[in-house]
């Protein structure tokens, strides 16, 4: 057992290293492919990292719900969009300082997530409805959330007001050049982008800690393994489900605010565009694996950034799916997923 665990761990480390290396090497090959140097390779890499971190953070919510309940929550993207709106609108309508928008959106997203569980999932669970019905009911919940946002906020794009962003310290939205001498690397990045990456990775580490090291996390894993056994161990299965939805919603809310900070266009349909990306990210990385989601997010971001850099921007939405197709055929459990034992 011990040996095989070690092999698995080494394998996943090797895959992670390979993919990261591939992403980095491709950035350095770009000037040769293009025959001209438009942006430095490091510039592309920084873009990949900060865009990818938002994707990973968003996609983790899908992975979390899927690994505990075994269902795909299609309303996650709508919660993400609501998180963005909670952040932006609290600044526009109520002059909330911009620092409070992140915890506010996380709380709001978490509450919406629990409500979605109560309305769309819990009644079906009680009836032992098939998982496919739960998928459709989450779709209904998503439609309700998107339409509510449309009624409340309208369909024109919203953004954090420029004046509020300007009040941030260190001139956060101004890109400034950096050089790393020993690599010969030069790139421009805004403090805002750096803080997006830091916040996203901090939240992901926090989740990893919660699931892997705390008693609550252990209870969650027991519920994922077998609900009846969890009940026998006097774990409140319903409570764990609600906690899972709260965490997933909070992650979506955080990702929504970070997205709204990064891109100045938030509409009620922003979530629908992200939904597919999130699904691709978790399947690429391996369903239910936190490290896999991080890797998948970076990979999807890399495809987008590089496709645009080469001048085939129309391919940028297709490439992740081609990669997904190939990976599913040769490694159906995803890059870092563990192969499940088939039970007859």
């Amino acid at each position, binding site marked *: 057992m011990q040996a095989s665990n070690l092999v698995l761990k080494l394998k996943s480390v090797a895959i992670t290293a390979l993919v990261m290396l591939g992403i980095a090497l491709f950035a350095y090959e770009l000037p040769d492919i293009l025959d001209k140097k438009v942006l430095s390779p490091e510039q592309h890499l920084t873009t990949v990292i900060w865009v990818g971190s938002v994707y990973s953070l968003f996609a983790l919510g899908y992975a979390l719900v899927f690994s505990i309940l075994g269902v795909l929550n299609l309303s996650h993207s709508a919660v993400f969009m609501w998180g963005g709106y909670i952040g932006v609108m609290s600044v526009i309508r109520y002059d909330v300082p911009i620092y409070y928008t992140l915890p506010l959106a996380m709380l709001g997203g978490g509450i919406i997530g629990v409500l979605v569980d109560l309305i769309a999932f819990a009644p*079906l669970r009680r009836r032992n409805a098939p998982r496919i*019905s739960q998928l459709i009911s989450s779709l*209904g919940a998503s*439609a309700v959330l998107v*339409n509510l946002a449309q009624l409340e906020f309208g369909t024109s794009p919203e953004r954090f007001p420029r004046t509020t962003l300007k009040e941030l310290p260190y001139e956060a939205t101004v890109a400034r050049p950096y050089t790393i001498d020993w690599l010969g690397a030069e790139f421009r990045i805004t403090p805002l982008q750096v803080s997006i990456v830091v916040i996203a990775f901090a939240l992901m580490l926090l989740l990893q800690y919660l699931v892997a090291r705390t008693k609550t996390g252990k209870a969650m894993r027991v519920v994922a393994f077998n609900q009846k056994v969890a009940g026998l161990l006097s774990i409140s299965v319903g409570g764990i489900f609600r906690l899972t939805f709260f965490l997933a919603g909070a992650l979506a809310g955080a990702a929504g605010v970070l997205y709204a900070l990064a891109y100045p266009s938030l509409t009620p349909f922003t979530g629908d565009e992200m939904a*597919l990306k999130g699904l*691709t990210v978790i*399947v690429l990385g391996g369903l239910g694996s936190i490290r896999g989601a991080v890797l998948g997010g970076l990979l999807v971001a890399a495809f987008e950034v590089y496709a645009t850099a080469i001048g085939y921007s*129309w391919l940028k*939405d297709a490439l992740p799916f081609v990669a997904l197709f190939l990976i599913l055929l040769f490694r159906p459990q995803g890059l870092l997923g563990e192969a499940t034992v088939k039970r007859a």
Partner: protein
Amino acid sequence: MGFVSDALASIGLNEFVITLMFVNAILAMSIYLTLYGGMFSLANAGFMAIGSYVSVILTQNHDWPFLPAILVGMVAAGLIAIPIGLPVLRLRDIYLAIATIGFVEITRIMILNFDKIIAEVYTRLHMESEPPKITNGPLGITGIPVETKLEYLIVTVIILSYFMIRMHRSRFGRALAAIRQDENVAASQGINVVYYKNAAFILGAMMAGLGGGFSGHLSRIIQPGSYGFGTAVDILAYSVLGGISSWYGPILGGLALTALPEVLRPLKEYTGLINGVVLLIFIAYLPGGLGDPALWRSVRKTAGRIVNFINKGKTANAGA
């Protein structure tokens, strides 16, 4: 008949909407076939796009008559399903769903950029002639003659229903049901799992292609944007909400879910919201769907009880 159509039109169901309802019923039946074999495939929106574009290009650019064109569209969808199904159907559950969504999105993006791809090929091969414009990118093909008639659709639905009823009791249908319940056991009983799964997938693709051909000749314009992830999930919703425990469930689901937003149209900006709420209520209180045989049995029982009650009242009155 005029009276009936007037009554339907008064609640928002004009002839166009009714035609669309039947098109969606065909699409819902197409996904029922794969679900019956236990395959959670969402590829049908992609096959619908292929059927739609192939048939419209034939009638628009090559002056084909309507019926041969949609049949060719149907066959094209079936042919493309062969190389897709063989590798993809090894996957299960959510993995199959996401791989097929990938197929749908790739198809949509390919159609969206078809002219660009052709132009690229022309320049690479150093061809002199001007590359043709076929799919017109995001604008889509416009000015398509409206050829789809309600009669065609009703006939198609009847033929497909007959096929479905026969399928349940045939070797093919029983094999699919066995595969749905347990693939390993089915294989150990000598059922060629790969063959039957692919056959169901291809037949479903052909039905979706046919539905796409009809829908393409319905609204004068087709755009790649209307065949994406959203459509794939909508088709699944028709089928699941109608109920996948009977052959008529998906038809009911397709008809009802297409009619719903039109009937709710007078609610103006609340249409979408109420539509979602109704979807939630349906799925929460009718987990077996609209076509659930148990639901209809209980409806019949309740109706019988009411009739009995009324009759009893009558006899009691007669006695007094």
